[in-house]
């Protein structure tokens, strides 16, 4: 789902950068408003590394295997640091593996980052309904966060790709292929959802602070 260089026109790449710049600026502002912005940096940075490596884990889906994006979970755990984390993660992927382009860094970050923030919001609903102590409901919200995080990212990615590829494909074919690609990714979204659910239940048992409304914010307050 990472969009490579050369495919989308500059206008789209520029728009992507504009959105990413805005979201990053907003995130940094929120980070700087905390009592001790520095305290959250090592936490966010090391979790970025952990998510980066965790996405290498092969999930067997016979006959093949898939790698998860985990943007939903990343949003859940990192809160305001999620967008910078995704930006950095994508940058590393572009440099290290040429996975996703540099001109398309903005587009890719927006495509994965906005759903991540949405996933964060969805997961926080858990506290709104006072369900944070229930393992079952934590799992449910985890599933929603994970699956919607991926589904939305896929929807954005394919819509951009199909509508901006140079060449004339007629509108009906365009719409058909977008729908087809998104539908093809639904099983993947379900898998991400299930995996995210299992992960949040694990974290709830082992380190619940990681799930409490952006633990990085907590760190900034606690250590001051």
């Amino acid at each position, binding site marked *: 789902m990472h969009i490579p260089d050369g495919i989308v026109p500059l206008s789209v790449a520029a728009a992507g950068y504009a959105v990413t710049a805005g979201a990053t600026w907003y995130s940094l502002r929120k980070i700087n408003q905390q009592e001790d912005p520095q305290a959250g940096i090592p936490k966010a940075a090391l979790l970025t590394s952990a998510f980066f490596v965790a996405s290498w884990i*092969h999930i067997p*889906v016979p006959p093949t295997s898939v790698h998860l994006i985990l943007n939903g979970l990343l949003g859940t755990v990192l809160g305001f640091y999620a967008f910078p984390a995704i930006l950095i993660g994508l940058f590393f992927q572009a440099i290290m593996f040429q996975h996703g382009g540099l001109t398309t860094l903005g587009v890719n970050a927006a495509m994965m980052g906005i759903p991540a923030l949405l996933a964060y919001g969805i997961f926080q609903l858990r506290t709104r309904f006072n369900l944070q102590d229930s393992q079952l409901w934590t799992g449910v919200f985890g599933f929603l966060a994970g699956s919607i995080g991926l589904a939305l990212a896929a929807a954005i990615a394919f819509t951009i790709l199909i509508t901006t590829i140079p060449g004339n494909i007629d509108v009906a074919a365009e719409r058909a292929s977008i729908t087809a690609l998104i539908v093809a990714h639904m099983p993947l979204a379900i898998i991400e959802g299930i995996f995210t659910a299992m992960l949040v239940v694990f974290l709830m048992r082992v380190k619940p602070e990681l799930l409490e409304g952006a633990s990085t914010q907590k760190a900034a307050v606690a250590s001051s």
Partner: protein
Amino acid sequence: MDIGLETYAKLDSPVHRWGVRQKLIGLAALIFAFAFIQDLRVLPAMIVVTAIIFAISRLPFPFLVSRLRYPGIFVLALAVVLPLFSGTTILVSLGPLAVRQEGLLAFLLIFVKFVCILTLSIVLFGTAPFLKTIKATRSLGLSPILADMMLLSYRYIYEVANDLTKMQTAMRLRGFRAHGFNKRTLNSLATLAGSLLVRSYERSERVYQAMILRGYGRAKISYEEFKAGTADIMAMTGVIVVAVGFVLAELFLRGVIGG
């Protein structure tokens, strides 16, 4: 495990010696100029310029090819889709399918842009230590929060990767085989991923303590190492001029400017 592009970062070439800040600005300008191109007539010039810069950098060609392989797969998928489905002018008929001219040319455009942009990116990031490049972007105005996060993430990716390998080995030694898509396998892998997260989280507390013990946040960063020489600035200006040239050529061919 290396960051991949650092393998040839210590070679000697004019590009390697080019000041990192100027290299960043110059090549970024050229990369975005290339992204702007939609007219096929500009492609030959793009290829020539890219080839020249790559040649000057003395990076090995097989290295470039190996780096293009993975992302190239996706682009080659378009090699099939576009010529067969996009456009109306039919060049060759192959039974029920037809190779269309517009699609073929669209693919050609994408392919050349892809190769040129990626080659320049690899030259940009492959001819200097990654760390230096990050510091250069910080000196150009990148938020210190982002720069610090990037440096720390970069440093600890290796540690987490080590943890992952060790844990996977431990799991395998206890008979775990990730074969089927079933609840038990998923749960084990979720536990694996979760452990990575928890360990990193706990490690980050100690890292933070180590950082403040040595005065994190008090430094006034000096960018002396990035003092620019005349050659650096001239090279940058030259490349920017070329980039602008490409943009103007494209605008001219589109009929936006010129006679």
